[in-house]
């Protein structure tokens, strides 16, 4: 119950951030929104793991945190240098 309410609050926060991600106006605003949504996803995965009483989902959360960071950095490298290789 407790975890469900917390997850619901985070989903509401994700919707608000997603609105910013779709509205923009710049690509950086979108990127900020999506990065923040990614970290919310990490939390949400952990909470869902506890809702199902299977905390082993945490491995996924850990990997997810890493991937989210790498995606953001890849994007910024492209924006900075204009290329990826």
């Amino acid at each position, binding site marked *: 119950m407790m975890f469900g309410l917390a997850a619901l609050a*985070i989903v509401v926060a994700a919707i608000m951030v997603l609105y910013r991600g779709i509205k923009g106006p*710049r690509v950086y605003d979108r990127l900020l929104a999506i990065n923040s949504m990614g970290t919310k996803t990490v939390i949400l995965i952990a909470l869902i793991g506890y809702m199902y009483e299977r905390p082993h989902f945490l491995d996924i959360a850990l990997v997810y945190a890493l991937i989210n960071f790498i995606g953001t950095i890849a994007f910024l490298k492209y924006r900075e240098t204009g290329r990826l290789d």
Partner: protein
Amino acid sequence: MDIGTIICGVLLFIGCFFILVASVGVLRFPDFFTRIHPAGKTDTLGQACVLIGLIFYEGFDFISLKLLIIVVFLLVVNPTATYALANAAFISGVKPWKKGDKRQ
């Protein structure tokens, strides 16, 4: 209801409050450089609060160690990503908002 569950509930409440306020901030602030403040600070603290709450619920074992690793990782990575974003925007010539300008 043992003490760990109660602490967990309180921390979850505080963390969710922080995360919600951060989202409101991302919506309300007028430009990119001001939006990055709630996204970089308040969000990080909120997430750390939620995860530490889960640690209290779990007690001490391997799973809570994993949670601790995620907390440390988030605390290091979130400011770094924020810095990278802000720096990229600054280099590409996004002008910071001044008092009296129009909202973007």
